[in-house]
Each structure stands twice: as C-alpha cells, then as structure tokens.
C-alpha cells in the first residue's frame, strides 16, 4: 500500500493511501454528498478540471457497471474517498472501481478524513489542491502552482468530436422493461447483450400527432448520456452537436427544439460559445437548458453569473417550482450560479429557487419558448423527481 497525500492550497495536508492510476495532479477540490452513484459522478463531464471527494465514506461497494457511465470516460483529475471497498458486489458489476480508475488514468486517495476536508471546503470555500504519492513534496513549490490553477476552457475537452444522431424509440418496448419487472439475464449480459435498466418513461410523447419524431438539437458542452436517453426514450430524434458548432449550422437542420447541455468550468470562459447561444436565443426555436447551458444562455442575454462558495453537488437539494409552489428533490452539480439581482424581467424571470440557500435554480424567458434549469432533471446519479421537465420541453416543441 502506497502512501498518498492530498494537499490544499492553504497548506493543509491529508495523508492517505493511494489507489487508481499513479500520477500527481493539481486540480480544484470539490465534494459531492450523494450516497450512491459514484460512477455517474466520475463519468459526468461537468467534473472535468476538478478532483472530487465523496462525503459518503464507503465507496466502490457495487463496483463499476459500464452501463451506468454517463459519458465515454471518467473526467475528474482525482478521486478522494474515505474507504474504498475491497470487493465489489453487484449482479451487473463489470469491474472494481480500483481497476476502472487505473484504466481511466485517474489517481485516487483513500483513508483520509473526508468529513474534515468537507468542513474545510465549506468554511473556506472551494480550493485548489494537489494529489500526489511523492512523500518528498515541497509545499513551497506546490502552493504557488496550486494557486495558479484554473479549470480553463475545459468544455472543448469534453464535448463530442463530431455531430451524431440518436434516433428516438419507435415503441416503448425498446426502452426495456417497466420498473420493477426487469428480470436480469446474466448469460445474455455476459454475451454483451446489455441488460436494459427499467425505464421510467411511460409515454411516447416525443412524436407529433402525425407520428413524426420531434427533432431535438443537443448542444453538447459535456452532456450526460441520460439527457439524450431521456429524450430518445420519449421518441425524439436527438442530434448531438460539438460545442464549437456554429448556431447557423444547428438552425440549418431545422430542429423542433434545442437542448443546451450541462458542462464543466466557469461559464464566462465560454466566450465564443455564448455568442452562438445568443443566436439560438434569437431564433425562436424552443430551448431547454440544463446547468452550464442555463448559465450560458443567461450570460448571452445580459445576466451575470458568480461562483458559489463551495457549490451544490449532491442528490438531496430541494428546488421549488415558483409557478406551482411544489418542491422537488434534485440532483445537482454546479459551482457557479446565475445572479438574479441584476436580472432584467423583460428578458427572464426566476422559475426555480433552491429552498436551502435561495439561489437561482431556473429561469423562464419572457415572451420566449425557453426555460432553463440549474439542476439536473436527467438525474443519474440522484433523484428522478424532475424528469417531468423533459415532457414540458416536448409540449413546448409541439406548440
């Protein structure tokens, strides 16, 4: 067992044990409070440029099920846990978390007091840090390097390389069994005929009355797989566009609606993308945006964003739909938030707020078929409660 160290830019050092790939990294250290779903966290492109600490202490219990990956690879620079399970136990398990991180080239550190780390980040705010196995590290050398670190233009790293189409399902059976009745066929699974997870979607509403699939353009800033799946499972044809695609190209394909995806980093680092998003805003095509997408369209229309002290990352955040007064428990992963104080109500008004701290969780654009949310209705990991927003988007496209 090799020693590993987590060093924060304020000089705090945690000593733990190394696992995963062996390399030294400097990154922004954030914590996630989800009790399950570590693989979804690892494969969420929004974590690119960050190192993630799980506050739940027992991680890796059910190993890695490739089907649950939210993108093509794992993104965080490092993974920080209290205790990594020695063995994985789950009927779908493909490999252990240790093996997975090794293959993905991601270093991990276990055995540190993750609660103490969380308390530090909560009190002092998100910080940069370093994960290393070098016992002879030098604080004098590392601290300036850590302080200089920024996530940078990380969207370009995580977006898809070229545009591609995911066809909507033709009938609900394609989605797999209904929740609760999914019987697992181990042999078929091992043959590579992947088990379909039980589906939540019970209506094939992503098609017009004439039976044509609605065409959705998904602008990929680091989209989680379940955004595409949530639309395709409802019958929509989804075309995914790389982040540097011009608005004209998207509009030329005449989509019925546009989805702006989640993604990593500071929204203000996405200068040229914001310009394209502004053009989409002006196009009158219905738009639904999630997380970074929500922040980008806000910036594109004159609003401002700021960094939260330590962000919202977890699966237990209550958001209130201001229209209905209903509260939903949501999956969240964001470090930046839209400033509502300087919001021009002729352009947009708040649609959702966070019940805990009152920060903005969604906007409704005045006079437009556009609504955007800060949280993740596509869940994975986390509560599936706000999945109805995809239906709302579909209704908007049909109007």
């Amino acid at each position: 067992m090799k020693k590993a160290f987590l060093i924060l830019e304020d000089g705090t050092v945690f000593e733990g044990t190394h696992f995963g790939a062996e390399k030294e990294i400097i990154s922004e250290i954030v914590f996630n409070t989800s009790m399950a779903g570590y693989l979804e966290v690892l494969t969420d492109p929004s974590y690119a440029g960050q190192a993630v600490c799980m506050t739940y202490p027992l991680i890796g219990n059910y190993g890695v099920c490739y089907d649950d990956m939210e993108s093509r690879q794992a993104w965080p620079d490092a993974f920080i846990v209290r205790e990594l399970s020695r063995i994985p136990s789950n009927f779908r398990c493909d490999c252990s978390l240790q093996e997975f991180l090794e293959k993905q080239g991601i270093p991990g550190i276990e055995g540190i007091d993750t609660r103490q780390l969380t308390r530090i980040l909560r009190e002092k705010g998100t910080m940069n840090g370093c994960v290393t196995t070098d016992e002879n590290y030098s604080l004098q050398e590392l601290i300036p390097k850590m302080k200089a670190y920024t996530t940078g233009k990380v969207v370009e790293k995580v977006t898809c390389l070229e545009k591609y189409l995911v066809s909507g399902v033709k009938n609900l059976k394609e989605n797999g069994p209904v929740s609760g009745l999914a019987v697992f066929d181990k042999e078929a699974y091992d043959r590579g005929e992947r088990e379909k997870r039980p589906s939540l979607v019970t209506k094939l509403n992503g098609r017009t009355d004439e039976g044509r699939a609605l065409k959705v353009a998904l602008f990929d800033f680091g989209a989680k797989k379940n955004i595409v799946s949530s639309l395709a499972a409802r019958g929509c044809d989804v075309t995914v566009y790389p982040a540097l695609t011009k608005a004209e190209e998207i509009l030329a394909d005449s989509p019925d609606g546009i989805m702006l995806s989640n993604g990593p980093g500071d929204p203000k680092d996405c200068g040229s993308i914001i310009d394209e998003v502004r053009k989409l805003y002006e196009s009158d095509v219905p738009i639904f945006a999630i997380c970074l997408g929500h922040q980008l369209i806000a910036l594109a229309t004159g609003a401002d964003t700021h960094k939260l002290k330590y962000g919202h990352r977890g699966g237990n955040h209550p958001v209130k739909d201001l229209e209905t007064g209903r509260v939903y428990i949501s999956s969240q992963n964001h470090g930046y938030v839209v400033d509502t104080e300087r919001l021009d109500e002729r352009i947009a008004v708040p649609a959702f707020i966070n019940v805990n701290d009152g920060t903005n969780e969604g906007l409704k654009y005045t006079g437009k078929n556009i609504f955007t949310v800060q949280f993740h209705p596509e869940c994975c990991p986390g509560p599936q409660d706000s999945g109805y927003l995809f239906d709302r988007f579909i209704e908007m496209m049909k109007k």
Partner: protein
Amino acid sequence: MPKNQNVHRVMVIGSGPIVIGQAAEFDYAGTQACRSLKEEGVEVILVNSNPATIMTDKNIADKVYIEPLTVPVLEQIIEKEKPDSILPTLGGQAGLNLGMELEESGFLKEHNVALLGTTAETIRNAEGRQEFKDLMERIGEPVAASKVVKTVEDGIAFTNTIGYPVVLRPAYTLGGSGGGIAHNQIELEEILENGLRLSRVGEVLVERCIAGWKEIEYEVMRDSAGNVITVCNMENIDPVGVHTGDSIVVAPSQTLSDKEYQMLRTSALKIISELKITGGCNVQFALHPTSFEYCVIEVNPRVSRSSALASKATGYPIAKVAAKIALGFTLDEIKNAITKKTYASFEPALDYCVVKMPRLPFDKFITAKRTLTTQMKATGEVMSICNNFEGALMKAIRSLEQHVDCLRSYDFSGLDANELRERLKVVDDQRIWVIAEALRKGISYDEIHEITMIDIWFIDKINRIVEMEKALEESRGSSLETELLREAKRMEFPDSVIARLTGKSEEDILAARRREGITPVYKIVDTCAAEFDAETPYYYSVYGGENEARETSGKKKVLVLGSGPIRIGQGIEFDYCSVHATWAFSKAGYETIIINNNPETVSTDFDIADKLYFEPLTNEDVEAIVDIEKPDGAVVQFGGQTAIKLTEHLMKIGVPILGTKAEDVDAAEDRELFDEILQKTGIPRAAGGTVYTAQEAKEVANRLGYPVLVRPSYVLGGQGMQIATCDEEIEVFMEIINRIAQDHPILVDKYLQGKEIEVDAVCDGEDILIPGIMEHIERTGIHSGDSISVYPAPTIGKLIKDKIADYTKRLAMALHVKGMINIQFIAIDEDVYVIEVNPRSSRTVPYISKVTGIPIVDLATEVIIGKKIKELGYKPGLQPEAEYYAIKMPVFSFEKIRGAEISLGPEMKSTGECLGISKRFDEALYKAFLGAGVQLPKHKQMIITVKDADKGEAISVARRFEKLGYIIYATRSTAAALNEAGVKARKVNKIHQESPTVMDLILGHKIDLVIDTPTQGRDKNRDGFLIRRNSIETGVYCITAMDTANALARALENVVAQEKLTLVDIAAL
C-alpha cells in the same frame, strides 16, 4: 400552506402497553409530536393506557388520560373533551386501528371531529390487503402474487399458477403459528391443512415466496401540497424472510447502485403520492438480488419502529415533522431542527454508516425457538454509528449487553466445515457468529451467500473482522504493532477483545493507545454530510481524523447514563427516569450529557440533553467520552442495571458518582454486607445463603428446607430467578445460571409466601419521602414486574404500613441513600420481611409519580444535587394516600415467542404494562384488565385445569365464574373436584386421550379463558405447556395464578353492574 386555522384541540392516541412489535418508539414519536403540536399553540389531549411513558406526563400534554385504549373509552373522552381533531398515526398499529374504527362508525363525523393527517381512505388503501393489492396493480407497482384460500385444493390450484415455494399465512392466528414455507405439494398439503384448522375463519393466505431477496426500506414523507421526500433508506443484512425488526439493518443501503436506489426511491414516492399520505410512511421492498425485479412488501401509513430508527440514523425528526404536516404546514415551511438553516424539504445525506441490531429475548425464554421468521420477536434494539461498517457492527454487538463483544462471543469452533454448512441454514440470532466461524474454516463467500443469501459485501466485511482477530492473535507473544492496533481500533475492536486475542492486559492496550495517540474522536450527526454548519451536538465516535466535540466549560456538567436496549426487566420506565433526571439537572443549571444506544427512546432525541453521545454503554466507550467532556459527576441511579454496572469504572477513572455511593449500592447487592445492615437495623428477612456451585446450593436449601428461591445477584427483572422444590431442580437451575460466567455469588433463600409489598422512596440522607405503598395481587413467588400492583395498598392495615415506612427509612439511612430507593417486602400477618433493596429508580416510579402527582425523579435529582426534602416543599415520611386507586397490570408478548413458557414465576416475563385508575377499586381493576386487552366476556366458556394444591381455591374461583354465566370445562381431576363441590363442570379429555380433547376445545375458538396452574418446576407437565401455548397462540386469555383469576372474576362482576367508565384526567391530579 400555513397552519390550518380550524385546529385548536387535538386528541392524540398512544400505542398502549409495550409489546413486542410495538415498543418505546411510539413514546418517542408521540412525545416528539405532542411537543411539536404544543409549539404551535395547539391544546393536546392524550390518551394512552401505558403509564411508563413520557408522553403521558402533564408537561407533554394538556390533558392526560391513562385509560384503556378501546373504542367506547375513546368515544367517552371525545364526548367529554370535545377535541376538534384526532391524530391517530402516532400510536402504532393500535392507535391507527382505533382511529379507523371511530371514523368508520361515523362517530367522528357525528361529533365534528376531523381525522388529522392521513385520511381514512388512505389508511384503508394501505392497510387492507385487497385494497392495497388493487391499488398497487392500478399504479403498476408489483406485489408478490397471493390468494386467500379456504381449502387445500384451492391452495394447490393457485400454487400451480405461481410456482413453488410459497408462503402460507393463516388468518387471525397470532405469532405466525400454523404458517410456513412449502417447497412442494406434500409440504403444501401438510401446512395448509394445519393452518386452515388453526385459523379462526378457516382462511390461509398463499403467497409467492420471495424469501432470500434483499429487503430494503424507505422512510418517506409527504405534505398536503404533495411535496414528497425520502428521509432515508435502509438495507437489511438478513434477506427477506426475517422480520425487519429482528434483522440486522444498515443505513443507508450499501449494496445498491444508484440505479436500484433511485428505482426503489421513485417507487416509494409514487406509492406515497398515490395513497395521498400526509405525514410519514414506511415502504418495504423485496429486491431480487440479481435483477431489477422487485416487490412492494408492505406500506405503513404512520410513524413506526423503522421511522424512529431512521430519525435517529439521520437526525431528521420524522414524528415532529409529521405533526407539523398534520397541522397543515408544508415541508418547505418547516425548519430543519438540526441545521436551523435549511428546511424539512430536503433529504438527509449521511457521511457515516449506521447499524441496528435487535435485542432478542432468548436469554429469558430458554425453551423458546431461536429461529427468526416473519414474526418479530425482538423486545428492543441498539443502534451504532461509525464511518465504517466493521466498526458500526462491532459497536452494535457490544451495545446489546448480552455477554457478546466480538464475533467470537458465541463459540462454534467445535463444528467442522460440513456441520457449519448445515448450521448456516439455521436462521437465528447467532447467524453472523456462525458465518464468522464458517469463514475461519475456509468456507467460500459464494457458498455462504448461496446458503444464507446474505450479500457478499457483508460477508466480506465480516471476514475483515475475522482477519483482524487472526492478525491480533498472531501477534501474541510479540509486541503489538502500532499500525495493527490503529486498524483494530478503527474497526472498533474493544480493548478487552484486543487484550484477549493478543494475550496482553487491557491496561497495556490502553497505555499503548494513549502513547500512540490512538483515541477516538467525535463526529456530528448533522443531516447534511457537513455541507452546512449544524448547531446540534449529536455525536458518535470514530478512530482517526478531526474531533468535533469540544469540552465546554462554565456550567457544572453531569453525565446521565441511559439504560440501553429495551429488554424484559429493563424497559421504557428507565428511559422515563433518565429523561426526567436530565430535565431536572438542566433546570438546576447543569449542562447535561446523555450517553445511550437505543434508537427507540426519548432520551436519544437530540434535543433532550445539551449533548447526546450515541455510543455503547461499556466502560471503555464511556471513559473515552469522560476524557473529552470531563464531567463534574455522573448519575447512574436512573439508567437501570446498565448504568449501575458502569459505576465501578466511573469511580476508578475519577468521576464522582452523584447520589448514593457505589459502595452502598454494593452493600444492597452483597449478601453478607446486606445481612450486616439488616442485623444492625433489626429488620427481618427470609433466611438464606450465598453459593457458587450446585452442591453448595443444595446444602443451603436442605438447611433452610424447600421451597427455596434461587437467583443470581446484580440482575434486573429477576433474571434466572426460580423457586426450587427439590434437589434435582436446584441442579437444573444452577446449571442454567452458570451457563454465563457469574461475577457475583448466587443467592439461595427460604421461600416465604405472603403479600408482596413494594415501595419507592426518595432519601436525602436525613429524611425520607415515600410517595405511596403498593401491594401486589399475586402472592410472593411471582416477579413484581409480572404481578398486578395496586396503589394504595388495599388489604394491609396501618400497623403494617407504618412498619414499612419505618423499615424503609431505616434501610435508606443505613445504606446512605441519596436519591432513589426501591424496596420489596413480604407481609405475613403482622410481620414484615424485606425481600430485596435496590438503591436506584425502579419500574414503578413513573406510575407512582403520575397517580400521586409527586414528581419523584425530579425530587430525587434535587436531593442528589444537595437539596433537602423539607426545602422542596414536602413533609417527610409516608405521603397521604391519593383518592384514586391505580392498578398496574402486566402485559405479555407470549404469542410472539414460539415455545416460550407462559406460566409466571420469580423471573420476569412481561414486556409492558398498563394502568387502571379510578376512585373505586373494582373499576380500577376492570380498567386495568381492559387496558391489557382482556375484553371479556365473549363466549362465556372457560377451561380450568389446576394442580392439586390449587383445587381448593379453584372451587371458589369457578363458583364466581359460574355465577357470571360461564360454562366451565375442566380436565378429569379438576372436574371431579369442582363437581364434588357443587360447581357444574364439564369434563374434557386430556390431549393424548381421544377426541374431543381440551385442545379441540381451544381450537374451536369459542373459549374466553383458560386457567391453568402448572405443577412446580419447569416444564414437567407437557400437557399443561401445550394447553397454555395453544391458548396464547389462538388468542385465548390464559391465567396461571389463582390470585389473578380471582382478580379477573372481581373485575367482571363489577362490569356487569356498570355501563360507562369514569374518566380521570391525570394532568389535573
């Protein structure tokens, strides 16, 4: 939505006496809810027949009725108090059923009383077997296929459509008797035939067997606006087949991926939304271990044992929030009481692992089957918190107080691998110990999993503990490596176990730990995994990392030691005392610190003491807290035997014991010291002696002459206590007592038969205050906790009472009691003998406090702090008698424990109690029986079968019942005796004789009552045992003492003449 403006007066229904499956958790929930209602300015009218509860205190509710929980009584209270609403979802199944009956009869509507919280329709949909099945089918949620059948043929036909195995559950039998799992048609025919016979309505439910699936629970909340959240999910280590109350449970789930976790969470929320529940609800799932297939097992539309556990596991106060929701508040309007920053509309995030273990009563019922089934058997439970599973499990094990502290505590090393494979098939309370041994013998994870269906992740964790044991053992003879010690402590191996395994002394281990800085730190349960700053000091220990508990200073600090898991003999009463003592210390300006490990109790609610340490109650665990907190003193006299046992160590580490000194507690328990005191004070007692071996015991017994009383010292609830009538019995009893190594000698006393008298008193060193004298209905020989107890003592005269008051004072003075003392006496004619003295609080304290209006625990606490009784406004001595009779009736849970002997003796067997209170003795007695669930007469038929010595008394008892219109059946010799005396008795055959026998009669479901007095000694009379068991299992009231039978006759004679009961508001006394 703001508070509902139509709600001003709410009647809250409690859950009644503590029985297995319905225990202290409802006092916790009810107390929390009442306080939550009062916070909103609502007047609370509380009804609960259980006097040992905190919820029945007058500072918790405005009006308190300790009355039988029956529909007519509730109707009377509603007519008298005119509440505008009732809240039935806090009193367990008992409370819920009563609320439903009131609603369905139209009574509530007629009296303009609203049902708060969940509606009647919702309750029907959740509780009715068919309604629930239909609703689940309608919303596409799967339930296990099942059908009610009335014939064996129908059962076979249905099973052929769903496949074997199937579970069979006869309708209306208690304790799951007559049920079982059938794997093939032969078994099906056999079980079904028997089940149909046992069922009162001749119906058996045939259900698809999902045993072996993962059992997962979700605690969910919903408000009237439709907002839904899950408080927590829990995974049972024991797969489906073991009642969740008897399972080892972990929170949150450990082996579910996010996909399974969210699938079940969404299902739970869908169900609670469809049911339109407002408040808390528990949903239980069976999840197929190798697929996404699941079944909804059950939904409880109310607070439950699981919700109490979830509240303590997360810090989310479910009952409090449920009460606010009932008043119309929505989740986003209710503040999170822990963070005080966020709201109740969020889901707790845990950054630790919680393990719950059941406390099973097999040490009390040694003849009972230890097998765990879908019928709950645990009387209580412990919970532990740690940041790793091994540590949480190790902490939970030692919290049980069942002489277990590690995975070697039950020794299966004598079994070879094949025997272990067989033993693994047995599902009982020792299963994890068997698994540990199987791992030591090299049986593979897969094989253990295949037999037990326990997830491999848990098996691996057990193996990590086994590996650590081995590593420690291998270091025997050499010095213990620091890193190994550090890792052992991280897994929460107690020093004593490390010392045993390494062959070192506990002192060595502690010294090594101190030297290397391996001491526990304390973390906070904050509902949010440290995301927000929490203000509530609710702590648990871990090894390694940052310490969040800080020594506070300023105020004087007192440590209040709780009483651990609820068990027979040490129940909720001690939690009542601990909580009241905490409040009293707090009022006196002390900072209060509670240590306890029982998730069902009020004392472990985070806002009772200034600080709560959720930790095992062992010397080592308590010492670690003392090291951090440095309290000015500890109080042990309120936490039952659990706290008393810690006294010696607390003194050793320099913590002053507040109140009676430890050496004086010892003097009361130590035979020789106590005899000296008795001699000095001139108080007589039954002759006796102390022994260690059966030989010595026989010598003493023969010297005294039989019968004698045999019992271990330093126990509560008369554990192991027996009346022996001959040498052979002494041998049997001594063998049983010595199965567990005894630190203290065993007592053998001459058995005296007389009236048993009990006294609780407070002594300040100069004066004594005796709130009242209680007399038992049953003669000596039956444990005081199992006797019907009457205050004020009805049949003893002033002379005896004065003598008792005098003896009590003399004993309290001689023992230098400061605080509480409890004494049991025997009165024979004009002589009074002392049976035993306990210089601590007792199980009668709550009830006597309530009926006399004298706050005994508060006074005792003031005295402990240094006040004098005279300063507290009381005249010393025996207090004037109240104008009410209060009769405490024991309540048993025999039907839940298959194979348990139900006849009463010196070892306590009751799980709870209820109170009957009235100005008239007869009415109080009737109420007490009614409260205990004895609602007679029904069929007016009874069976009498008594031992020869009781035949004389049986005649007068039978005559009374005959006069009440009872048809009396009796076995041969009893019938002959009765008929000879002119009481008409029909003779029935014994079990082994030809049909119809006494058993057929019982199974005919037309018998009200069985009076069966067993011949002396354990289990001699197999016939009697079967009669008693079958009566209990078919719901027939069974009496095993003639005094109890006479009392019942008296109560029934009274009811004939009376229509309505008089009601007493305890809060107005």
